[in-house]
C-alpha cells in the first residue's frame, strides 16, 4: 500500500522561508506503515521540496521513532542527498532534526538514546556541518 503523495498545494507558497515536516514515519513497519516496500521513506519530503518555488532558510524534520532499534533503519544518507542536491535548499542556514519518542514496550528515553545515535550518524554528513541541530521531544519516563 502506497500512501506517499505530493502536496501539490505547496507550490503556491512563494514566500516560504521556514519549512517543517512533522511526525515523519521513516520506518515502514506494522500498522503505521507509511511507505511502500523498496520506496525511500523520504519520498514524500522529496516530492514536497521538488514542488517548492522559494529558497528555504530553516528546514526541520521531526522524526517519529517508536523503538531505539528504528534509529538504525533510518536512511540518513537519503537525507544528506536531499539537502545537498536541491536548489531551493542552497540558502539553508539551519537544519534541525527533532526526534519524537513514543513509549512502546516499556518505554525508552529519547534524550539519552536517540540523541547520541543521531549525532553520530548525522555529523559525518559534510553537507550539513555547521547547520545541524539535533534535539528530542518525548514522554518522560
Amino acid at each position, binding site marked *: 500500500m502506497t*500512501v506517499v*503523495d505530493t*502536496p*501539490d*498545494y*505547496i507550490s*503556491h*507558497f*512563494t*514566500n*516560504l*522561508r*521556514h*519549512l*517543517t*515536516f*512533522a*511526525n*515523519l*514515519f521513516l520506518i515502514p513497519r506494522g500498522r*503505521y506503515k*507509511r511507505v511502500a516496500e523498496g520506496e525511500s521513506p523520504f519520498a*514524500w519530503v522529496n516530492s*514536497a521540496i521538488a514542488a517548492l518555488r522559494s529558497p528555504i532558510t530553516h528546514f526541520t524534520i521531526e522524526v*517519529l521513532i517508536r523503538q531505539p532499534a528504528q534509529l538504525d533503519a533510518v536512511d540518513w544518507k537519503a537525507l544528506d542527498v536531499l539537502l545537498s542536491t536541491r536548489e531551493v535548499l542552497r540558502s539553508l542556514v539551519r537544519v534541525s532534526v527533532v526526534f519524537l519518542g513514543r513509549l512502546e514496550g516499556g518505554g525508552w528515553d529519547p534524550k539519552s538514546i536517540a540523541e547520541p545515535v543521531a549525532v553520530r550518524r548525522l555529523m559525518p554528513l559534510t553537507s550539513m556541518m555547521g547547520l545541524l541541530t539535533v534535539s528530542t521531544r518525548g514522554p518522560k519516563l
Partner: protein
Amino acid sequence: MPPNPLIMASRCQREIPPELVDRIIDFLHDQPKALTACSLVARSWTVTSRYHQFSMVALITPRCWGKFNRLIETSPTMLRFVRSVIVDVADTYSPWMSVCASFPSLQHITMNGVVSPPWREEAAAISSVAHNITSFTINLTVVRAHYVWPIIRMFPNLVTLGYVGARCVVTVVPLQLSLPCHSPPISTMSITNTTLGGVSDALLNPPYPLTSLSTLDIRDVYPERRASLQALAQAYGGQISRLRLHLRGHRQQCTPLGGFKPLLSC
C-alpha cells in the same frame, strides 16, 4: 541544645534569593504533584507554584465544573493565575463566555462541543478580558459556519487561530448578532483535521483579509480536503513564510495548540 529544624528551614529559605526559587519551580511547570508540594513549602513559594499549577484549566465535564466551583470558593485568588482554559460547550446555553470573563489573565481559549451564538449579556461580560485573548482554538466541534467568525472577531488582539477536527454545518438561517466586531491580526493558523469531515470554507474564507497571516500549520491532510487547502494556498501562499506540514494519516490525539496538557482536569 540542638537547633530547631523549623527555625533552620526558615533561615535557609530566607537566604535563597526569590528569583532562584522561581527558577527552580519553573522547571516543575508540568508536574502538578510537585507543584502542589511546592505550594505548601512556604508562603513565598505559593504564588510561583500556583502560577504554573493553574495556568490551564479544563472545564469539560460536570465533575470538572463542580470541582472548579469548590476550588474558587476556597481560593478565589487562583482565578488570576488562569491563562488558558478549555471549555466544553456541549450545552447550547453553556455560559462559557461568562466563565472566561472571570479569569482576568486569560490568553488562550479552547472550545469543545457545539458552537452556538453567544448571548448579548455574555458578549458584554467577556469584553472585559477580550483584549487579552491572543489564541483561540476550536476543537472537535460541530461548527455552524456563520457563528464562528462573529465569535473570533470579538477578540481584537487574536493572533493564533486553531481549528482541530471540526466539522462544519452550514445552516440557511441568516444570523444577526450585535457583537463587537474587530479585525484581529491573526498571524498563525493551525488546521488539524481528523476523520470528522472537510475543512470549513467559512474558516478558509474569512470575512476580512488576513493580511498578518504568516504561519500555517497543516496536519493530517486527507485527499478530500485538498481542494480547500489548495484554495487556502492560493489565497495566502504569497504571504506565508513559515509552513509546518504533518504527514497525513497519523492518528494523534487532538490537543490544543502546542499539544500541552491541562494541569487541572478531572
